[in-house]
């Protein structure tokens, strides 16, 4: 018997041959959270929750405004190297930038991405319950762009803000999905909170009406 057979046999023996699952898993006993009603309420809750964990939010009504917001950020942080994902929305905002920044594409070599100061991606969904962004890797190349640079800017259309974690799981995006709730942090030294460890130290979310 190989390892798999031995382990499964050990499990079955110790369980006393359990009854088989009838056509797939038993129905879920999890409770779905009551949906936060309107889109406006979800938007407000999303902003509140994200701010609580140290993220910043800005509500905008056009990609032009988004470009302006990014320009301001470059000015304030004196950043000149911008990594971008392959999202069409991101590309549109970048085309409207006034600042002179060096653009680094998502498929650039690791060393270039490591040198970027700002990473700009979109997010597939937001979650109002927790103030989280959901990044689905099969929809956009943003896994490293959202992680390596010390500042992460994400643009999210407000109609993509879901109510709860349950709503997010129901999307079943397949492949790899990352849920981001605020900037990176640690409390490993005397439980003192330090923001900005290996992931970004700043998270800015631009919400597009």
């Amino acid at each position, binding site marked *: 018997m*190989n*390892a*798999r057979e031995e*382990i*499964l046999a*050990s*499990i079955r023996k*110790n*369980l006393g041959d*359990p009854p*088989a*699952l009838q056509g797939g*898993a038993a129905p*879920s*006993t*999890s*409770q*779905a959270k009551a949906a936060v009603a309107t889109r406006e309420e979800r938007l407000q809750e999303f902003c509140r929750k994200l701010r609580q*964990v140290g993220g910043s939010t800005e509500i905008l009504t056009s990609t032009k405004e988004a470009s302006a917001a990014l320009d301001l950020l470059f000015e304030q942080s004196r950043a000149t190297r911008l990594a971008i994902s392959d999202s069409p929305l991101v590309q549109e905002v970048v085309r409207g930038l006034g600042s002179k920044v060096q653009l680094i594409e*998502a*498929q650039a070599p690791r*060393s270039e991405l*490591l040198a970027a100061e700002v990473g700009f991606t979109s997010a597939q969904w937001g979650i109002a319950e*927790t103030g*989280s962004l959901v990044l689905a*890797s*099969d929809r956009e*190349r943003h*896994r*490293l762009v959202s*992680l390596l640079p010390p500042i992460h800017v994400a643009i999210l259309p407000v109609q993509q803000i879901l109510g*709860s*974690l*349950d709503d997010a*799981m*129901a999307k*079943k995006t*397949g*492949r*790899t*999905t*990352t*849920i*981001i*709730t605020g900037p*990176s*942090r*640690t*409390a*490993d*030294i*005397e*439980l*003192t909170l*330090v923001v*900005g*460890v*290996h*992931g*970004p130290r700043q998270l800015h979310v631009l919400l597009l009406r």
Partner: protein
Amino acid sequence: MTGRKESFATAARRALSDETLRGALRSATDLFSLRRQEAIDGVEDWEDLRQTGRRIKAETLSRLDQYLEQFTRNAQAQGTKVHWARDGEEACRLVAKIARDAGAKKIVKSKSMTTEEIELNEALEKEGMPPVETDLGEWIIQLAKEKPSHIIVPAIHKTKKQIAELFASKLQTDPSANEAELTRTAREFLRREFAQADLGISGVNFAIAETGSFLILENEGNARLTTSLPRVHVAIMGIEKVIPRLADLPTFLRLLPRSGTGQQLTSYQSIIGGPRHGAGGEGPIELHIVLLDNGRSALLRQSTTRQALACIRCGACLNACPVYQQVGGHAYGSVYPGPIGAIITPQLPQLAGLEKALELPFASSLCGACRDVCPVKIDIPEVLLHLRSTITAERRSRVEHLAFRVWAFLMGGRRRLLWARRLGRLLQALGLLRLVPPFSIWARARKLRPLAPKSFSQLWTRNTR
């Protein structure tokens, strides 16, 4: 009791006399408990959540073989390579082979208690492939060549000053650096490691049978880096980590961060569904997962022991335990300390041989604080009592056995009891009672006058004449 019980006691005494350690533990466990309570206060159906978590785990464990097979099928369909390991040694051999076959020159690792259990780092070091820990707390103890003392905050026993001095001696940094500066040092150093890493090793918090994907929770971002930068990713998980459906995940995402660190959610959850997909994809080209038994399947036999497998490794029981709060993790002599450690260390063969393993179920006052905070409602005191019974049955102490025989004899007849009481009062009056075991153990630190001048039955007889 035999001399064995003394070694946990010795370790505990040593910890108790370490003022720095006690200060660090006190502030950390107080803060954790406070944050947990605040986080829970914001949840109106916390008890329902716990019950749901417990039910999902119970259902999964009752059909563990089928869920593991479902997970394997679905994972393989995404291109993930699934390996099975009967014990720690087999798991280490598998990982070493994957690393060798991949020609890995630089291995980075995110936090995984399972890899501590099987001593993976040591095994890989022996093969000339030392992994670099990237979680800040784990990196600190790797530099200090110590074992973790908590399952969530491995360096909880160290003060900021000690950490600054450690960095100063190993990395020539400022010995008076503050937390932010120390963290920045770690970030810069480890970023250089990440830049070259070609193999990443991680643990798993939950594996989802329905999709063949698995979830890793973290705050720092090092697990995301470990699992997306290198060419090859190897994940290691205990077989009990599987859950049936994606729809089950929110329950645990609501339970675990609140219980562990008092957060609503940790900064990042990575749900990893497979290796890089197609030319435009991101992430590792090879994804491996090792399913580890190492004694877990045996715990399924009895419902009392099976519940220990429901553990989601939040650490809440450690923070609540009055024993852990005083002595910290190292006194337990196991990578799993505290209440959960006391029930799994003696039951997992790889750990049961540790010096203090069989004492751990006795290192408890059975106060039940752990049971009250456990997010999946493991009745830890029930398991502790069960283990005390099985351990005592196997390692009968002659002295204790004799003592109970004597006690049974004395209690067996009224006249015998009266004479024993007279003898006891005489010894007490002469100050000699404290020499008689088990009174002698009690008397080491307490006053000892258990026998009243007149017994209740004597007073009754006198007053009702």
